[in-house]
């Protein structure tokens, strides 16, 4: 077990290294002076000279990579001349809203999609099953901003139950946090509910035909426990895989949602950075996202070990 963890963590190193090399080369291979690109359009010549010295741009490429990598390991992602702040602190400021949104979305998704998919499989062919399948098609088809604006119109503008937009940290109380989080998270969750409910349905449906489900019934086990203890546990591996992939995709999905609901998170930071061609920030965000993808995959692999004793690496 420990051996597996160490091997698995060791296996992430080459991946992270490749991302780092790619991000490093992104600037160096762009035509023009990297220092001028980093400094942005409004930089003074003085700033450009400083950047050139700091990055060692006169040195050969591998020395530059060593300097850059060394800074990276110390948590120094460089300076954004557009925002006039270190990239690290820029990301640190924006990380909380985005993670909050992602977390609430995932919680809603799992709480809704897994029971819904399981019931649809159990009542295969019933109206509930048809509703879930129909909802899945609809959920895939409607863009997140449409759902978002409909929610705002109904619950904020007409009913006035919830504030229109904005973000409040959870440190200032759970309710104020949830009040502003519930709509964007729901809007974002729709497509993931569609995806995961379908996946759950397919997976549970397959497992329900297995012999051990029949064995459980032959023992006199009740239907609820047959579903949860026997069917769902065995159906879990593909479901968890999709949830994991969903979390990874989610981070891309927050961009639009954050714009619709005016949430100051990483999504909007990315948009602004791209529009301003703020390379240090773009680099920082790419590195962060890649790290998250790798981390999520690691967590999924570890989850497999607990879900299925037959899986041993």
């Amino acid at each position, binding site marked *: 077990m420990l051996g597996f963890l160490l091997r698995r963590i060791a296996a992430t190193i080459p991946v992270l290294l490749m991302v780092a090399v790619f991000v490093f080369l992104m600037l160096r291979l762009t035509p023009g002076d990297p220092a001028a690109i980093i400094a942005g359009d409004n930089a003074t010549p003085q700033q450009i000279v400083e950047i050139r010295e700091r990055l060692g741009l006169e040195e050969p490429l591998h020395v530059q990579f060593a300097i850059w990598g060394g800074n990276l390991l110390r948590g120094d992602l460089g300076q954004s001349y557009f925002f006039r702040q270190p990239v690290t602190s820029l990301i640190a400021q924006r990380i909380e809203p985005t993670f909050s949104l992602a977390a609430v979305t995932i919680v809603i998704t799992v709480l809704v999609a897994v029971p819904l998919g399981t019931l649809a499989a159990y009542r295969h062919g019933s109206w509930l099953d048809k509703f879930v399948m129909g909802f899945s098609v609809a959920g895939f088809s409607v863009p997140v901003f449409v759902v978002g604006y409909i929610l705002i119109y109904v619950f904020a503008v007409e009913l006035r139950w919830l504030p229109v937009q904005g973000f409040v940290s959870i440190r200032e109380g759970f309710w104020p946090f949830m009040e502003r989080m519930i709509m964007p998270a729901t809007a974002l969750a729709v497509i993931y509910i569609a995806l995961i409910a379908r996946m759950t349905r397919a997976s549970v449906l397959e497992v329900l035909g297995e012999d*051990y489900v*029949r*064995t459980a019934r032959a*023992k*006199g086990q009740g239907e609820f426990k047959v579903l949860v203890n026997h069917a769902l546990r065995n159906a879990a591996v593909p479901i968890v895989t999709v949830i994991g992939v969903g979390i990874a995709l989610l981070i891309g999905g927050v961009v639009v949602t954050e714009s619709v609901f005016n949430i100051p998170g990483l999504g909007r930071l990315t948009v602004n950075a791209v529009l301003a061609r703020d390379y240090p920030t773009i680099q920082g965000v790419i590195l962060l996202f890649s790290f998250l993808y790798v981390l999520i995959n690691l967590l999924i692999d570890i989850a497999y070990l607990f879900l*299925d004793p*037959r899986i041993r690496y």
Partner: protein
Amino acid sequence: MERPRILEVERLAVELPKAADRVHAVEDVSLHVDSGEIVCVVGESGSGKSVTAYSVMGLLPPGQLTPVAGSIRLEGEELLGAKPRRLRELRGDRMAMVFQEPMTALNPVVRCGDQIDEVLRLHTRLDRKERHARILDILAQVHLPDPKRIAAAFPHQLSGGQRQRIMIAMALVLEPALLICDEPTTALDVTTQAQILRLVRELQEAHGTGVLFITHDFGVVAEIAHRVVVMEKGRIVESGTTEAILTRPQEPYTRMLIDAVPTLEPRPPLERGGTKVLSTERLEKTYQTGGFFRRGTAVHAVKGVDLRVDAGEIVGIVGESGSGKSTVARCIARLIEPTGGIVRLKDADLAQLKGRALRRHRRRVQIIFQDPYRSLNPRRTIGASLIEGPINYGETAEAAMAKARELLGFVGVDPNAIDRYPHQFSGGQRQRICIARALILEPELLIADEAVSALDVSVQAQVLRLLETIRERLGLAVLFITHDLRVAAQVCDRILVMRSGEVVETGPTAEVFAAPKHPYTKELFDAAPGRSWQFAKLAS
């Protein structure tokens, strides 16, 4: 002494869905099981024997099979129409069931001990410690070594026989009045089958359990039954004591089932000697596990096997699961790559061929697999499956189709059914189709890998006859892989007995059967079900 009646089924009728080929899955079925008695229900697939068993348990698929008439009483209590809640209370407590496939009947992600514990938690108020003691006790009763370790093991860590013991432990832990066994040994090796049958009888005697035992094999009946109920097409055709049914069967159907049980009498040895088609020399297959970051271990699946098959000859490889017999077959068919040795097919050594060179030889060796339900693509018509091979080797679709029709006729399937899908055929028909698919490439060597093991004995006999005809008419060399000595006796001219990757005994079938030398071969003989009764029949 009058024994208490455990189960009484009277005039049971179960309706099939509207589209089926008959109205009732079972009709007018009456039978009973008394305490301490084993009643075997015998019949072919589709005879309604399993439907009867599932009706008793209340486990028929809802909406598809519905009991419409009759009554089922367990210790005097009516089960048809009982509330689901009451049925759940009875299941696992007063009546329990052991299923056919031990490999899939246990939940793969729950420890074996916990699966038994589930029964105790559902039906008793014992505390944790008492339950644990009960689990270890029942595991010891089913003769599993080291109950503590077994209780903590997951199903995939155990063999098929061990898993079936777990199922039996789970069924008997609360000492139910009725135990239903649905072909519990069909998926097992003969020696394991013999052990499981002995175990069922031993525990049933010790606890006075009434057993309803479903099987298609009269060999098993002879081993275990007190009374026999024979079913055909949903109806009971005959019933009586085991002795009476086996010695004086009244119905032709019963007689057919009894005659289908292969005897241990070997076929007469083959006279004419054919030319050598296949030979292997020091064939080896070693599996290497492990990977990038860790040490590997080596598993020697096949260790230095020499064999030879001549034209017009059927050579059997007999052995149990894990003996390496299927690995030998797959190495010869080059579905896997041998790690050492020579596979000589007439003039060519196939062992290390790759890519195009191998592809040229592929059509010369064809294989028939064990499970006809899974070896045909369910989404293609059998015609499409049949002609795929010839088309790959450059024939036109029309020519291949004509050949496919001809071969279907040859193997005994209606050529007009060529546009149907596999699910429209029975298991025996599907295996015939698989044989046609192998023959259509005009191979020099045909490998039958447990090709009749998944079939009912009566169907088995027909398919064996077909193989015999193929050998005679086409003069093919046939390599016949089986775990069942009785089957090997029917068709093989020579046999090799394999164990742990090695050939332990080899010779003409008649010689090996007359005087088995290796203790393992003797063990296989003793395990053949119905053996003692076979001798009784020969004597009469």
